[in-house]
Each structure stands twice: as C-alpha cells, then as structure tokens.
C-alpha cells in the first residue's frame, strides 16, 4: 500500500473531490506543483488548468480555475473558483470562449486584455482535459 494523503477540491457551492490519493499535479499560478505525501506546508494561488491525481494507480482529473491551493501535513486542499469534472465540460462553449478570447487578443478593442488572456487559458484547459479523457 503506497503512502497516501487527503486531497480535497472544493468550489464555493460544492465539494468535488475528497479522497486519499498517492500523488497530485496541481496547476499553481506560477506553474504546476507536484504533491506527494509529506509535502512541506505550502500556500499558493491557483492557476487555470488540469488538476490530476492518482488513486490506487488510476489517474483522474478535474479542470480548475482561480483560487488557492493549500498543502498541509494533514492533507491538500484546493479551493477553486470554478472546477469541473471532464465529463461535465461543455465542449462547444469552451471552443466558443477560446475563439472569442483569441479574436479579442488579436484585434485591438475596448476590452480587458488580461481578462481575455485568462479566458483563453481557462478554455484551453477545458479542451485539453476533454481531449485527454477521450471525448
């Protein structure tokens, strides 16, 4: 039995994941964090992307965006503004969001560049998650 730690992924309105996992890859604001059992306590802002974790040798994933990740000796907690399981992703909507964001980044206009960048990142994370899980 490999060593495990508790992983929780929560959004303001629900708890998505609460499991004992052996490892997790979490998208931090400044890059992916790999978490294994007995990781040092750490607090970071969460980026947008695919959060993967391993339970009993099986890899699962959720798409997260915005929020924080807290690694504690007792377990890891991810508080995300938005989180979805791969099967909940609306592919059409994600593609539309990506197209819109890319268009806005190319053309100058009266919109928020930082927001468009974040939207593009979110949409890419969703599409990537969906394609990885074979949809």
């Amino acid at each position: 039995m490999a060593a495990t730690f508790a992983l929780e992924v929560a959004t303001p309105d629900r708890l998505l994941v609460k499991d004992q996992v052996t490892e997790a890859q979490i998208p931090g604001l400044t890059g992916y964090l790999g978490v294994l059992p007995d990781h040092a306590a750490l607090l970071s802002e969460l980026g947008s992307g695919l959060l993967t974790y391993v339970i009993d040798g099986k890899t699962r994933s959720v798409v997260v965006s915005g929020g924080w990740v807290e690694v504690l000796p007792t377990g890891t907690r991810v508080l995300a503004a938005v989180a979805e399981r791969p099967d909940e992703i609306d592919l059409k909507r994600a593609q539309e969001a990506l197209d819109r964001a890319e268009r806005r980044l190319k053309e100058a206009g009266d919109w928020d560049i930082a927001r468009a960048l974040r939207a593009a990142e979110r949409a890419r994370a969703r599409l990537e998650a969906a394609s990885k899980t074979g949809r």
Partner: protein
Amino acid sequence: MPSLIDFRRRIRSVKNTQQITKAMKMVSAAKLRRAQEAVIAARPFANSLRQMLANVAGATRGSETASQHPLLVERPEERVLVIVINADRGLAGAFSTNINRGAQKFLVEDKAGKTVEVEAIGKKARDYFRRRGFTIAGEYFGLTKSPKYADAAAIGRKVAERYANGEVDSVYLIYNEFKTVMSARLDIMQLLPVPLPQDHSGVDYIYEQPAEDLLATLLPRYVEVAIYRAILESAAAEHAARMTAMDSASSNAADVIERLTLYMNRVRQASITREIIEVVSGASALD
C-alpha cells in the same frame, strides 16, 4: 341560525384551504431538503477559506501593507450599510417580520444618528424598509429560490467596492441562520471591515506568492462566501418556517372542520327533534 347548507358550504371551503396548506407544506419540505443539501455542500469551501485566511492573517500580522488593505482599514463609523436577507414571498409565519424587526432595531438603536443604507435581498425586505423611508442602495429578488454563487459574488463585489472607495464605513449582514426546522436564529454579522479570524493554526507555509498578496486575494472572496452562505442559510430557514407555518395552518383547518361538523350535526339533530315533536303532537291532537 345558519342552515345545514350554510354549514356544508363552510366546511367545503375550509377543506379546500386545508388542501392548499397541506400541499404547500409538502412543497416546502422538499425545498427545505434541497436547501439543506446546498448549505452542507457549501461548507467545506467556506471552512477551508476561513482557516486559510486565519493562517495568512497570522503570518502578516504587524505588516504595514497588510493592515492597510482597503477591506481592512477601519474608519470612524458614520455611514452604515446593511445587507438584509429576507424572503420574496410570505406565508412563512413570523419569518420575514422577525428579520425586518431585528434589522430595524439594529439600525435605529445600535446605529442611531448614523447614516444608514439598506441592500435588500428579497421583496419582503425591500417593501418593509422602503415603506419606512430607509435608503435602499440595491434590491435583489429571486436569489433565494436556488441560490447561485455568482449572484452572491456580484453583491459582494459591489459592497466591497463601495467600502474601498470610502462611500460607507461599515457593512453588516443580517439574516436568519438555519438552526433546526422549528427555530432560526437572527444573526447580525460584521462583513466590512473584515474581522480577521484569529484562530490561526500556527502552520508555517512556504509562500509561493508574498503573504500580503495572498491576503489581498483572499479577502474579497471571503466577503463573497460570507454573503453566499448567509443566502443559503436564509433560504433553508425560510423553507423551514413556511413548512412549520403551513403545518399549523393545516391542523388549524382540521380543528375548524371538526367544530363546524359538530355544530352542523347539532343543528340537524335539533331540526329532526322538532319534526318528531310536531308529528307526535299532531297525532295526539287527533286522539
């Protein structure tokens, strides 16, 4: 004296009312269950966020930039904003009266002499405070039907911005906290300036970002989550209050029906007795 037909009519009408109150009770029970599930589902995020904020607050204590955060600075309290969360619809017993009275008492007694404004969530709150001449800063309807985080977040951003701009000096949240089906507790909570939770667990984090920056991102979310939680609690308390009110209305109707049936039988018996006397005395007159 009312006739038999009048009684039958009354009883039928009360029975119809009773059917409606019974149905409403059942609907409220179903909604209450869903509202309770939503309250429970929102708990892990809120609790973890609070703990994180407490830890970061502990780490940044004494820091100049942290205590100067726009959502933490304290000013002399002159302009008060209260967010009152109430129902959109009545027929929930004393639910809306309790919250409105409690809020008014808080504004008139505790905040006497200060400029006050009301953010009204729910028609019952808007109507009550508008009728009494309070300034309504904003009104939101239909939020407690199936509370959405995005709605709570929008209100949170609005009040946080007004606080940061110095338009108001404090923000309070007034709502009914769901305790049990039979009881709700009126809660008045200070939202801004954010009262930092003090119970930090003493963890020494590795900070990927400076703790002050994290504090600055945690605070607005903390405000939004507090409002969201209050809306969820209030929704659950409202359904519970309506369920209780409809339950007692149904049993009142049953009492009324019982009494009316008794009277009706008495009236019928009296008329039968009278007829028998008439027949008997008629027959004896023939002898």
